[in-house]
């Protein structure tokens, strides 16, 4: 009973807090640009509106066009639920759940790309191609980061392995994971969520033809993914394991906000790089994780 309630609470946290982050980011960007900008809760309004809108489906599209976003959304949610929330821990934890998390995100990617290709639009094909291709490099970085964590902790389950080491390793890991976060969530400098030049977009261009509830699922899923990565990043580098519950939760929330603000600042201070330089950035992130790994390895050996 308790467990069920706790599970529902956890679900609620993920479902309802996630859309906050894009709002915060946009606020920060607006503030830097000296505008008032949209309200923080803007995404909530959009989602609500979309949920009641009708759907326009391409004549080429198969039922997969609707199923794709749904599956992707569930996949991200499931991945999120695997992630422990600092002191609250996690409701489901087993050896190797971290691999399941990574591959759930892959499932989400598969479905988004699939849905994008349903329409036969050249633009969306382009977006899908970029998404899956850059994921190859991002995947390497993520695996390395996870390998680092598991080497530090000697464990393969998220609840145990998020015990960061203080020192240069943590810093390297933090920077690397932050880069991965930007890439995976299609933020500047990898992608520009609110450009209007389709040729230069990755994620946004994939969902061009979505509308109504499916689009809502896509947007909400993206928000959850962002939250997921920031939570992961925070727990990977902040040693909040040994703090008291209250302090820990505080640190968590603070950390997540910090990450969000950082994203906002990056977006407003840097420009999107040319596509041919994206691999370079991702490789850099990968190398950062590799160095972190080496440090962790030495640490473990010593």
């Amino acid at each position, binding site marked *: 009973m308790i467990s069920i309630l706790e599970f529902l609470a956890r679900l609620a946290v993920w479902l309802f807090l996630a859309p906050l982050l894009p709002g915060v980011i946009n606020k920060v960007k607006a503030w830097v640009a000296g505008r008032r900008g949209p309200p923080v809760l803007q995404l909530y309004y959009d989602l609500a509106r979309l949920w009641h809108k*009708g*759907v*326009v*489906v*391409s*004549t080429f599209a*198969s039922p*997969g066009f*609707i199923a794709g976003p*749904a*599956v992707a*959304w*569930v*996949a991200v949610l*499931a991945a999120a639920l695997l992630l422990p929330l600092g002191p609250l821990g996690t409701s*489901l934890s*087993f*050896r*190797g759940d971290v*691999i*399941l998390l990574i*591959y*759930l995100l*892959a499932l989400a*990617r*598969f479905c988004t*790309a*699939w849905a994008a290709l*349903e*329409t*036969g*639009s*050249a633009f*969306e*094909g*382009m977006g*899908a*191609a*970029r998404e*899956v*291709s850059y994921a*190859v490099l991002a*995947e*390497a970085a*993520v*695996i*390395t980061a996870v*390998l680092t964590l598991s*080497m530090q902790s*000697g464990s*393969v389950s998220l609840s145990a392995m998020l015990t960061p080491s203080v020192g240069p390793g943590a810093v390297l890991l933090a920077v690397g994971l932050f880069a991965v976060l930007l890439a995976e969530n299609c933020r500047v400098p990898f992608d520009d969520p609110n450009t209007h030049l389709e040729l230069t977009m990755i994620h946004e261009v994939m969902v*061009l*033809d979505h509308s*109504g*509830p499916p689009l809502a699922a896509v947007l909400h899923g993206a928000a959850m993914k962002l939250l997921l990565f920031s939570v992961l990043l925070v727990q990977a580098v902040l040693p909040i394991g040994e703090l008291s519950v209250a302090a820990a939760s505080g640190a968590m929330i603070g950390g997540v906000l910090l990450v969000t603000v950082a994203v906002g600042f990056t977006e407003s201070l840097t420009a999107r790089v040319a596509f041919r330089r994206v*691999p370079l950035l991702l490789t850099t992130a990968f190398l950062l994780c590799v160095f972190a*790994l080496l440090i962790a*390895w030495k640490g*473990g*050996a010593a």
Partner: protein
Amino acid sequence: MMMDWLIAGAVIMLVAAALSGARFPRVWLALTLAGTATLLATAFWTLGGGAEWDWRSSFAVGGERIHLRLDALSAWFLALVAVVGGGGAVYARGYWPDCEHPASAGRGRTWWSMLVLCMSLVLLCANGLHFLMAWEAFALSAFFLITLERERRETRAAGWLYLAASHAGTLGLFAFFSLLATKTGSWELGPMRDHAELAPLFWVALFGFGVKAGMFPLHIWLPSAHANAPSHVSAIMSGVAIKMGLYGLVRFSGWLPLPAGAGWVVLALGAVSAVLGAAFALAQNDLKRLLAYCSVENMGVILIGLGVALLGTANGDTAWGRLAMAGALLHVWNHGAFKALLFFGAGSVLHATGTREMSRLGGLWRAMPWTASLFAFGSAAISALPPLNGFVSEWLVYLGLFDAAASHTRVAVAIVPATIALGVTGALALAGFVKASAVVFLGAPRTQVAVHAHECGWWMRAPMLALAGICACLALAPAAVWPFISRVLVGWRSAWSGGKPPASLITLGYTHLALAASLTVAAIALWFRSRTNGVRRALTWDCGYALPTARMQYTGGSFAALASGWFGWVLRPERRLHWPRGPFPRQADFVERIPETVLERVIGPVGDAVMVASAWVRQRQQGSLPDYILYLVAALAAMGALVLFGSI
């Protein structure tokens, strides 16, 4: 006793099937199915804890008494042979019927039963001589199956390449088995871990079996053979036949003492095969070639598991080695199932449209919904996406890798790169299969053939459904097969007493169940929500472009261009591009060809060198009698010199 009868029955039925194949399709089908079913029964009897079956003939064949044995390891592969063998037989009835292939259908049936029989015998033989016989017979029947459509030049070329490569491997096995026989003094096979001097033989076996297993530098025969063979043949070749090479490796790495570097080398080969196989697969434009290269990739995954296991045994039978081995074994089944499924799917596409060229297809889901959904299912499974079976086996391998890395021993030097390679492979495979299924089945039909496609019949659909069902079972109840796996593990390394399935595996099973359920629910829910809100069909918006044509869609080539560009150093794509010129450009075209790098850049030159030598020798024999007498004198002199310096 019962086992004797069962296996004898299976063999007799398959032989009878081979004999009846030419004339009586129905009888053949019945016999083949009965035979494979019997084999399956024996396999599961053994896997389910039945005593190891061991039988010696009273008579001798080729100077040796026949010695058959069925232990858990053989049974594990035998089950795969039986399943795909039976399924393919059913599929062939719809895919390669007499009415469409009067010349070759009967031949195809005969050799099919022969192939299944010989592969089973390879798994059963416990005598080097008979193992070799069964091995070569299996290779030959595979050759005749590949060249069923021998009128086509490229089919003949592919068949010859396969035969040549496989014979090279077989000669390697000649050396392997005769060395074994000379060192142990008999052709009998069995555990011989105590003969330390046998360790170097592992390298010979690695070559001999590696050719068949299609691991990376030795995979040259695989793509063209799989692409040009009839699809049910490609299915059994890729799903089962290459596993025979793997069986040899597993079998003899279990029986022989191992050289120091074995684990490292196998791990490295596995990593290379996995990454490059996936990269090549992504770059292909021919649907079946793509699937073929993906087999290289999956063999790589399995070899990674095997390599980790070998490292584990070298470091005192560690638990992580065991996990990785379990993953590898499970992946053997998984890959067998979904690769066969995918080739069947590709076959029905080929059957419906007559082309394997992906850039000529597209939008097939409307014409062939069954095939489309089954192919999509297979693609998701082979991309190791949860909650499907491909993920379970890769997950086990990952666990092994992570634990090994966490063990902080020096093996981590090899483990860490392998882990990263496996991750990259996963992402590449995903890209490849998004490309394959989307370009073929989604969007708008690119050519007329794609427009006029038709769904395949039940003969072809049923086996696909069965295989998909097997995948689903393996995905949702992985813990159920653990007892089998643990028996195989004990057979491979007696130190590894099987024991219970790891708790996390059971949890993963439940998670998969929950996940599958919620995925379905969510999809349906969203569908209904959209229905209630009202669904309007409209042209793809496509940024407001008014007249989209099918030719404007993203092609497979352009889809893969970005990622395969990073592997240009090994893919070496050959591009021919005519830019559109002038104010009213006439024609502009772009042709891209992905060469078989190893074959064309490595084997080719060597072959040319040999042919130069051959031409030189031919030049020496131009029919002039005096020259011939001169050679006689030269031989006299040479032999004289040899004797002179020999006798001193």
